[in-house]
């Protein structure tokens, strides 16, 4: 077993992909296709890498994933590779040692992440039970097995933490309840499973960018674009159900002002992937989240809890749409959404990108100056001082942000600055001229706190931390200073129009 673990870890440690046979490489050096053994794809990165970020996490044994699991267990050796459409990967800075091997700096698994996680869980289970039959397993035993065997290589450690035990238990339970598949699993030979093939397409990002006239794309954004396009057609059930069911009411009530203001400029997407034309699009969730963070529908604590959540947001609006005598609230939300969307697009998104670059530079400077000793990356930093590329990657990984963790705090901060002007249009009490500096300061303060929290070491998961009241206090001093400096007044617009949904 140790030999197998060492072999699969070594593949990741070397950042290589070795094909089963010679691969096909396009003449323009932008695409590679072929087949690889499962063992080559187990630990491919998929989130927040220089080669892009895949938006979809493994979501358990949903319908399609169950079919993949069954297909794997039925005949992984022969039929699986013909029944499965394969995986897609983006690579940055690849080198080709021979016609079977490629080495890379960064990788993003843009399509096939669900399959990979199923294969990985099966491999981990097989290694865990090592020649014995599948039995029930305790979470802490499994986690300790993972920690003992897969904690020493950073890339693997970062990936296996997303193998949640509840998802592993789901597969164990399924196998226990389905004798046929349980038998297949027990009979499965780990060596031949690891050598079973899957088809792979590789997009070589550098070569793609090299010939592109679009100067604004970098490897991360090009990889992410591919990942998002690959995943756009996938169903995300809860969003689709809510969006489809409430499309008419949302359009007529909640998004009334947004539709007026952004007519033919931005399309609202009620079902993920439904807008395919080359127009700017925004998903309903992005818009609804903006209103929730103002507190117009819920108490402060519920604002915090709903950070980066989907289902509670949909539930709030579902209930709101069913209620009588809430016209004022709905009208206010309809006005708030386009204003906050404008703020998000014009100020928050660009300033976050600017800040990310600035913080990356600043933290590199701190690394060189030996000022990161007290952070969780302190030890790693000191070993990477002579390797600029790796240092840059390490810092970028820790500086990266999720806008859905930051935008709600900004909205929460400015929730008292809404006012209706003479034409009944909603605006802020901060003048247009002062907004760039105001939002720049606010974004920097909140984002800085976010990075500091991450680097200080999180007591629990990042998602739990960003739902904490303390995190929502960030940017308070900056807000007060700017508000007083610009002599902006606070209003009761939100409280006047709020309707707390219990």
């Amino acid at each position, binding site marked *: 077993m140790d030999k197998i673990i060492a072999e699969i870890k070594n593949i990741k440690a070397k950042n290589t992909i070795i094909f089963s046979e010679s691969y096909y490489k396009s003449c323009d050096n932008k695409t590679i296709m072929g087949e690889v053994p499962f063992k080559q794809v187990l630990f491919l990165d998929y989130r927040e890498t220089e080669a892009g970020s895949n938006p979809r996490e493994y979501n358990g044994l949903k319908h399609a994933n169950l079919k993949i699991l069954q297909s794997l267990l039925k005949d992984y050796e022969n039929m699986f590779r013909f029944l499965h459409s394969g995986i897609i990967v983006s690579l940055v*800075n690849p080198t080709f040692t021979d016609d079977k091997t490629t080495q890379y700096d960064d990788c993003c698994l843009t399509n096939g992440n669900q399959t990979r996680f199923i294969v990985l869980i099966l491999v981990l289970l097989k290694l865990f039970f090592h020649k014995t039959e599948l039995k029930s397993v305790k979470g802490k035993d499994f986690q300790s097995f993972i920690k003992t065997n897969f904690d020493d290589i950073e890339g693997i450690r970062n990936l296996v933490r997303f193998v949640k035990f509840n998802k592993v238990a789901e597969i164990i339970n399924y196998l226990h309840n389905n004798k046929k598949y349980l038998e297949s699993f027990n009979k499965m030979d780990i060596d031949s499973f690891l050598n079973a093939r899957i088809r792979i397409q590789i997009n070589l990002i550098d070569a793609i960018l*090299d010939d592109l006239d679009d*100067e604004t*794309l970098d490897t991360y954004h090009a990889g992410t674009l591919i990942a998002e396009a690959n995943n756009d057609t996938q169903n995300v059930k809860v969003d689709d159900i809510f969006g489809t069911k409430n499309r008419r009411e949302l359009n007529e009530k909640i998004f009334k002002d947004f539709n007026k203001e952004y007519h033919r400029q931005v399309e609202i997407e009620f079902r993920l992937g439904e807008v395919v034309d080359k127009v700017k699009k925004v998903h309903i969730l992005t818009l609804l989240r903006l209103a929730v963070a103002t507190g117009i529908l819920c108490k402060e604590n519920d604002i915090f809890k709903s950070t980066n959540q989907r289902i509670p947001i949909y539930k709030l609006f579902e209930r709101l749409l069913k209620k009588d005598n809430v016209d004022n609230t709905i009208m206010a939300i309809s006005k708030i959404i386009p204003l906050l969307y404008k703020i998000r697009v014009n100020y928050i998104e660009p300033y976050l990108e600017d800040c990310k670059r600035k913080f990356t530079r600043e933290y590199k*400077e701190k690394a060189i*100056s030996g000022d990161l000793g007290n952070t969780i990356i302190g030890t790693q930093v000191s070993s990477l001082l002579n390797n600029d590329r790796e240092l840059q990657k390490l810092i970028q990984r820790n500086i990266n942000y999720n806008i859905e963790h930051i935008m709600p705090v900004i909205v929460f901060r400015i929730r008292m600055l809404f006012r209706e002007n003479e034409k009944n249009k909603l605006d802020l009490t901060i003048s247009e001229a002062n907004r760039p500096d105001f939002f720049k300061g606010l974004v920097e303060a909140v984002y800085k706190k976010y990075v500091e929290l991450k680097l200080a070491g999180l007591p629990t998961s990042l998602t739990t931390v960003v739902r904490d009241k303390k995190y929502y206090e960030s940017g308070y001093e900056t807000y007060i200073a700017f508000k007083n400096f610009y002599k902006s007044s606070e209003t009761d617009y939100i409280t006047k129009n709020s309707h707390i949904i219990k």
Partner: protein
Amino acid sequence: MSRRTVLQNHTHFQDQIDNIIQYGLDIINDRLSYFGGDQKQQQKSMLLESLLLRSCALWESFVENEVVFLVALEPTKLKSETGLPQNTRLNLKLIRALLFSDTYRTYYNIEQSKPILNRLLSDKYNLFKQIKKEQLDKISFVYKLRNYLSHYSVFAKRQLLNAYKKHCSYKRFLEPGMFLIKQKGKHFENLIHNFKLTSLSMQVNFK
């Protein structure tokens, strides 16, 4: 002469580099209103090239001052090198004159200047030894861009193409401005920021 003067030299240089990076990123991200029409990319590209040239000039000036200030902290080796008695009192002007006035001399190419810097600076104050190899490589790459922009010669172009291949695996030649704009200015930011990181590496054990 105090250590503070050396640190001020660093801070001054680092601030100037920060300004250049910010200005360059404003250009790349279309935050300046004075570009327009069909020539926009070309105009942006020309400005970025100018900023690169400016960074090189600032680096040269920084290195020149640094050598003078570091020699002033411990001028024994300079006195030996020039045959002056050890009890000679040297001020900054005299040191500058001894180092630069007889002929055109520059130390910006640290790799090449290492032997002479070792002869002029005491080990304790030879901060140039703190510079990492990767930082020197990047500076050398910047100077390939700078040389091409200064001469537009066939030789300089060939040198630059080789540098593109070595550092970025590029197969075709790109005008420096277009190269600096690419990937939202990633190369521009990285290469110019390297000057600041180099300065920080030098002063890390000096504070």
